[in-house]
């Protein structure tokens, strides 16, 4: 009887330990993904691009290299007055809004190494 109780207690402790390790791992993984610098770099790039579009005047071409200092740009989208940049495979969820008086046209370079934002 005594032995059985001891066994049950040790089983419970093991299960608890496994659960605690699981939760801690999950928490650490979640935190590391949150403070991943790639998200911040993506945000910086989106906001820089939006500000450049805001202050640009007709005739200006903004060139953004795909192999950027902030990482590799997989895709840039301009939709509904928002800039979305997919950086190092991280998709952009919210994008960043810009406001301009002119037409903003996004094209890709012939060599496919850079994006060109034309202000017309």
């Amino acid at each position, binding site marked *: 009887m005594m032995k059985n109780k001891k066994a*049950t207690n040790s089983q419970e402790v093991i*299960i608890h330990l496994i*659960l605690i390790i699981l*939760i801690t791992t*999950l*928490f650490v993984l*979640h*935190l590391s993904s*949150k*403070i991943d610098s790639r*998200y*911040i770099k993506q*945000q*910086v790039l989106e*906001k820089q691009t*939006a*500000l450049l579009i*805001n*202050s640009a005047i007709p005739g200006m071409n903004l060139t953004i290299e795909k192999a950027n200092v902030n990482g590799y740009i997989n895709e840039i989208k301009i939709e*509904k*007055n928002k800039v979305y940049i997919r950086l190092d495979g991280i998709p952009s969820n919210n994008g960043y*809004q810009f*406001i*301009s*008086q*002119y*037409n903003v046209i996004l094209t890709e370079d012939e060599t496919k190494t850079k994006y060109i934002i034309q202000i017309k």
Partner: protein
Amino acid sequence: MKIKKAESTSETIIMMYRLLLLTIIVLTIMGISNMVYTHTINVKDPESFVLSKKIINCIVNSPGFQINDIKENYNSNILKYCNFKYKNETEIYNKYFIRLDLIQEDSNETILYGDDGKSWVNEILKNSPNQNNLDSYKQGYSNINTNLILNQKQTELNLEVYINE
């Protein structure tokens, strides 16, 4: 034998409750960390300054600029008057607050456009005796005060732009 079975069933039930409790705790911690560790880079200050400059350029470059024209024909929306392109007026209305004062010798005209939910902050800043201490709270706010000649009249222009979101 029966007592043993009942014991094991009750232990299983207790275990399920524990697991549920743990899951709730984990989700709560993740939710809180999600809010606390989100790093947001604020560019509202340069954004408001750029917008202010573009609005002033628009006013200066509009021949025969009349504030009443914006009030009557553009529903006080100076962004529409200046031909800014946007998808949705509600979004713009919620994001920006623009106040334009034009003071001339014989008239004083004002237009307000946008969500003025934060204009009370500006009132506090203006009236506070210790406004230097409150300066750091003016995120996304620009105030340009300048003198120019508009329709051949000396005009004092005061433009305030807030970016709310």
